[in-house]
């Protein structure tokens, strides 16, 4: 979702036709992963556009991590098909690994290594020549703002720093796609903001970012597209606003007037929202100084779509 205020977007002229579907970074077709009778991922059809920041949302046990593990070429699906940056991870796992950086939900780091040694180890594991390590480590540490910790032991880092170090590790081979499973879990607010800014920078560098998180407000601010899963099934996918529109879900608009009064209105779609603004300004002649759709759209979407099914 754009960081642009809602009311500005609303007053813009008609938006042009959306571009043709960009080439997919990840495309899943009827992807299924079963453990006995349990379907962790159940006939998932999903397209993750290149260049997007894609949020995968769902309650615990929804199948997000399993989907990520299949995407990262760690797990073989029971049926269905998946391509990651054009390659099938079950057939060409190394091709996928060259093009993708994966950060699992658990923060596993080697405590007895220094920060630079840690990154050098992964550089070696990706076959990067020793002569390139130093410049590579410098660049990565600068990117994740850990330059001052270059020679610190990994076990001396805070959780937020370890999280950033893990992100640097996932970036060590300069992948086009980043798959981040709950990267913000356990981070304090400052660390979350820093991580969000970092992911935005990476996206601006042309990287596709796929992220899962329980913190919906955070995803709402950052993601261009989302997919909502529950019990292994895909409930909805696309830009959050479009999903809301498709669902016809009610939204709340907060209006503040020049006389200092403020009111909230419930509308169901963009048309109603525009009509409301017209009625207030044109028909009622009131001076509107602020017209904002209240945050919580993704949360509302999540609550509308999911039923709290536990597998």
């Amino acid at each position, binding site marked *: 979702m754009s960081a642009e205020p809602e009311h500005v977007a609303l007053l813009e002229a008609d938006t042009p036709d959306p571009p043709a579907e960009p080439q997919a970074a990840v495309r899943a077709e009827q992807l299924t992963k079963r453990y006995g009778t349990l379907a962790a991922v159940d006939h998932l059809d999903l397209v993750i556009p290149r260049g997007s920041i894609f949020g995968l949302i769902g309650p615990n046990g929804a199948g997000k991590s399993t989907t990520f593990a299949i995407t990262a070429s760690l797990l073989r699906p029971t049926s269905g098909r998946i391509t990651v940056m054009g390659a099938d991870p079950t057939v060409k*796992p190394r091709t996928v690994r060259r093009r993708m950086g994966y950060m*699992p939900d658990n923060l596993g780091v080697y405590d007895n290594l220094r920060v630079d*040694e840690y990154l050098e180890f992964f550089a070696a594991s990706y076959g990067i020549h020793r002569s390139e390590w130093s410049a590579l480590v410098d660049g990565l540490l600068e990117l994740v703002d850990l330059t001052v910790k270059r020679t610190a032991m990994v076990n001396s880092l805070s959780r937020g720093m370890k999280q950033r170090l893990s992100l640097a590790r996932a970036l060590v081979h300069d992948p086009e796609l980043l798959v981040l499973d709950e990267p913000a879990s356990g981070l304090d607010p400052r660390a979350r903001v820093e991580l969000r800014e970092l992911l935005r920078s990476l996206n601006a560098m042309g990287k596709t970012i796929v992220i899962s998180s329980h913190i919906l407000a955070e995803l709402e601010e950052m993601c261009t597209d989302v997919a909502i899963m529950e019990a292994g099934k895909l409930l909805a996918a696309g830009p959050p606003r479009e999903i809301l529109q498709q669902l016809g879900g009610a939204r709340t608009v907060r209006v503040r007037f020049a006389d200092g009064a403020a009111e909230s209105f419930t509308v169901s779609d963009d048309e109603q929202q525009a009509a409301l603004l017209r009625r207030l300004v044109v028909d009622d002649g009131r001076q509107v100084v602020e017209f904002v759709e209240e945050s919580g759209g993704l949360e509302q979407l999540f609550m509308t779509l999911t039923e709290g099914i536990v597998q």
Partner: protein
Amino acid sequence: MINPVLGRELRERMRTGRAFVVLGVFLALLILTVYLVYQGRETTGLIQVDLASQTQLGRELFEWVLFVMLVLVLFFVPGLTAGAIAGERERQTLLPLQVTLLRPRSILIGKVLAGMSFLVLLIVAAVPVTIVAYLLGGIRIIDGLKGLGAVCLVAVLLTTMIASLSTFTRRVQTATLLAYGFTALLVLIGPLLYLTLGVADRSTGTDLRNPPAVLLAVNPVAVVADVTAGVNLSGEGNPLRWASQSLVEARANNDDSWFAWFPPDDIGARFRLLDRDPGGFPAWAVGTIGLFVLAVAMAWLAVRRLRTPAEVER
């Protein structure tokens, strides 16, 4: 380029104090062995100025040091290697490793080489202790090298087996228990089977007491015993000599063959031919081949276990 896992393991291992503690304990126990054997001979009045008794003492010291070294290797390898892969799983560092371009076999080889390097360091560090025996006489340099080589060989094969076993567990604690259980089994199963079959043979009253000798040969103790104690069976007893003597007896009871129990077909005949010519197939070779086959089989299973994409999450 050096295997990245090996490089990291060595760096981590030598950075912690644990490596030096293990090295210290290893050397201290070997020195204690030399002291106790020497003291033991002194109190029994065996230490005399004549060359023969000094030579005998040198030989005894050497065999005891090698035996204790072997026991320590059998004790340290499970402790040092059990967490090779299980530790990665427990620390949750295996997944990031598996999504790199490292192949499963490279991960396992790196782990095995790291474990082996440390054990070889331990054994090399113990060379000065064995030199005490050499100075007293009774062994040649070649005997010393063969003995230490046999211990190294056992260490390498056992490290491969334990590191492979480590891929099948998620917790270091479970892996350690499994590793010690496996090592105990590896050392004891052959002799126990041999004794059991011997009792069974005797109870029938019609058969000779000749369980397959190979049951005793495929054993880490047998490999070291055959290399070190096989040349000289005189003097005071020690576990390596008892093991060596048992091997000789078992082979003699089996028509001088390790493979006498083989069915009388072509394969059996070929094995027996190999066994007898020239002068018999040595126990250490039989044991090494047996342990090598087991290590390779376990490593193959471990690599399969580490392979991704996997059918189930591990």
